[in-house]
């Protein structure tokens, strides 16, 4: 990477770039490599964050605040968070970063709406989800606003939960963060899918949660989404629970940001996925699972005014954490022993 090379196209990233671009961006690069439809975009490296801290001369101040706070003391964490956040918000994004982001942004189209998402180091790993460090800014337009959102993502590194979380498990290393910038999908329907049933652990099922509008409502738990369980083997819908989806996020009428609105009454209890939608999701779930070789937790969106499968986009994929393992069968039992135990004979365990 050149001295000012703070960004790369998402398509150029691979798993190994996790350390410099964060887990989310690296996973998006892998998805693109796997031929999965991902909205185009670019990734901002952790080097941009470091340049930001260095140029604004915030390093000493951050270190001082952090050394003053005690992880167990909520007030001290809050005070440190407030002081660092305030300082960061007033610091400029370095020109080199700003120019590069503007150039990359222009490649996505004039004033194109984008999503700006944090991509923390180690985030989205199989071991843990970095709760509280996943700031996402939707429907951002214009290079200046993208840079503001970029800075907001960096600020989120020092939110109180993020500070506590790091204090609990980390080694005191300097935190850093990558950011992903992606073209927005004007989602009619969006949600989450798991490439297994996370509740029962059944690996033959794809579990889908879906609701109207942008994915925020489902991810944030603001609606009870429609809930589907679909067999990977036969594509049969084994379970379909349609719930009343009362709110949704849609692009703000002014064209900037996403707003929460009520779902029109008549539409709330309408199933938001049909057979074709589920089929496309199960199809892409299988491809993602095969590519990564493990069960994945995937965020997806189906764009308005387009036809499946072209309208389906994957905006995030990460390994499923805490998957339930099916009860399975007792080890080292022969088929005959199992039959005998069904009749109440033989060894049960």
């Amino acid at each position, binding site marked *: 990477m050149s001295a000012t090379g703070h960004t790369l196209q998402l398509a150029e990233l691979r798993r190994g770039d996790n350390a410099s671009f964060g887990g989310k961006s690296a996973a998006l690069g892998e998805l693109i490599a796997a031929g999965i439809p991902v909205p185009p975009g670019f990734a901002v490296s952790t080097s941009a964050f470091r340049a930001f801290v260095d140029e604004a001369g915030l390093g000493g101040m951050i270190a001082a605040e952090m050394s003053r706070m005690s992880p167990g003391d909520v007030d001290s964490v809050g005070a440190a968070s407030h002081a660092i956040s305030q300082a960061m918000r007033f610091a400029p994004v370095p020109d080199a970063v700003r120019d590069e982001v503007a150039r990359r942004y222009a490649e996505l189209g004039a004033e194109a709406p984008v999503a700006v998402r944090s991509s923390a180091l180690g985030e989205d790993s199989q071991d843990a989800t970095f709760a509280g460090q996943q700031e996402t800014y939707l429907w951002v337009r214009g290079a200046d606003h993208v840079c503001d959102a970029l800075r907001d993502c960096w600020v989120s590194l020092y939110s109180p939960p993020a500070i506590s979380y790091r204090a609990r498990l980390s080694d005191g290393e300097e935190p850093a963060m990558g950011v992903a910038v992606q073209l927005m999908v004007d989602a009619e329907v969006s949600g989450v899918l798991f490439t297994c*049933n996370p509740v029962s652990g059944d690996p*033959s099922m794809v579990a889908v949660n879906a609701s109207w509008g942008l994915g925020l409502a489902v991810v944030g738990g603001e609606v009870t989404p429609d809930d589907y369980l679909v067999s990977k083997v036969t594509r049969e819908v084994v379970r379909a629970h349609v719930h009343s989806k009362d709110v949704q996020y849609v692009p703000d009428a002014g064209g900037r940001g996403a707003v929460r609105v009520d779902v029109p009454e008549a539409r709330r209890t309408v199933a938001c996925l049909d057979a074709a939608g589920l089929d496309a999701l199960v199809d892409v779930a299988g491809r993602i699972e095969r590519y990564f070789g493990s069960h994945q937790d995937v965020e997806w969106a189906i764009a308005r005014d387009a036809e499946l499968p072209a309208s389906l986009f994957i905006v995030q994929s990460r390994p499923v954490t805490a998957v339930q393992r099916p009860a399975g069968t007792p080890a080292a039992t022969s088929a005959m022993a199992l039959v*005998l135990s*069904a009749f109440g*004979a033989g060894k049960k365990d």
Partner: protein
Amino acid sequence: MAAPSTVGSFPSPYEIETPPGCEGWEEMYPYYGRFDEERREADEQRFWFWNSMHFPVPMPAFDAICIDTAYQALGSWQNRVFAVPPAMGIDWRCINGYIYISGNPVLDPEKIAERAGHFEKRAGYYYENWDELYGKWRTKMDALIVELGELEVPQLGEYEPDEVAFGDQQTSYVSVLDAYRNALRLHDVMWQHHFEFLLLGYGAYMTFAELCKANLPDIPDQHIAQMVAGLDVLLFRPDAELRRLARLAIDTGVDPAFVEGRSPEEIDAELAQSDAGLAWLAELESVKEPWFHMATGDGLYHTYTSWLDDPRIPYASLIGYVGALKAGENIERPTDHIAQERDRLATEYGALLGDEARQGFDQLLTLSRTVFPYVEEHKFLCDYWFLTSWWNKIREFGDLLVTHGFFEHRDDIFQLSRLEVYSALDELLLTWATGGQPRGPKYWPPIVARRRELLARLGDWTPPPAVGAVPEAVLDPALIMLWGVTTQRVHAWAREQEGGSELTGTAASPGVVEGPARVVKTVGEIGDVRDGEILVCSITSPAWAPIFSKIQAAVTDIGGVMSHAAIVCREYGVPAVVGTGRATSSIKTGQRIRVDGTEGTVTILE
């Protein structure tokens, strides 16, 4: 077994009233088949469920032989031969003509362990030598059917034939009683064969199903069934032959004879007018042996005759198939597709499992595929072919008693218990020998008339799905395997005792439809089913195949995912919910209902 109920309750068997005009129904059944006061304390604490799978309508006195013999046979194999560790056999009682059954559990852990030793040796021997033993079984069963066909019911002449006077032939009173005893003996033997492999066959299948569910908790039952089900099964042959005959009719240009509403005789008469028609009839004749030994129903009753006895059902199928072919529809059973799908499911599910589970999966699937053909084939050979022929053999004794004035109609014999028939024959032979005056001709006809009347009245009464105590858990493998009566099912019945517009059962064939219900309680009502209706019945028989092309969905009172209705509905792509416990008593013909074959629910909409 009994537990304080937290999930609803069943009525006490002692509190159920006799419907008006049905007093004295008990006379039709043996003394031990009642809920009597002597056993009240024990019987009230037991869980009894209505065996509507085998006995959907009130039992005629003679037909009760199928209860006794079947449970003698089931109990012998389960309890005395294989010594299934936690369960002995099945007890039965009768309420208002309907048969309730209850398992006898083994509770003593030492006894269970002792039985487990026998079971492992004996069942293990069967599983290991399955193909050889099943080959022998087929030979025995075929020989039994031949023996039944050859059994002669002697006539009583004024004088004995010369062979008695000049040869060694025995006298007719001995021959008639021998013939009757022999008929009963053949029936005993059939049931012995019937249960020899049945439990073990279901057991292997159930173990495979359990392994699938332990590793793939959400796998639909029907996928498990699809992986195991046989392709070239005897049970499907009769219907396949009808489809072949329908094609032949079109190919040889005799199809105009098959007009909706015509009787078999009218169709035959028209066919007999042309050479092509005669050729078709000749082909039909060649198919009849053995394929028209299909029964018209699935219950163990003399009224379920064969296609040979009542050709209306196969002819209705033929008319339907000819019509469908002419309309350009494909009537073939998609065997290739079923075979491919069966193997694809097995491969794909297998690939999702870890190595250890995979090994068990492969072994159990192989075992299940080895043993399951028996489960499907015994039905044709025992329940249909043998039993329909056997009822006809009993009718020949009915003829003998009609000839001598004891009865008006041959079928009157079924209003007497098997022991009463023995007694009537005894008297007939006594008075025939002595030249005395028989009392039977005056004695039996009023009894026959009264019992016919009783059965008709009892038929209007709706039995509760279960009586007695609600069990904490159902542990009896036979109840679970043969009747699909699981803990969950029983508790759902208990909850539903109060009624309600939603019924739950087993999701047997996926899909959701709404439509008008058609409640079918007896085989005679099959003809009433109209296009687009939802079939609601106690249980279906393979002989009902023709109506599955008409109906939108099927709902049954009893049965599991491997029951006939479930299998056929999956083949026809029609949603089905089986084992609802009370569909025929809760739903009325004409009501709109919604059947959700994916969730296993039935909702009464109006």
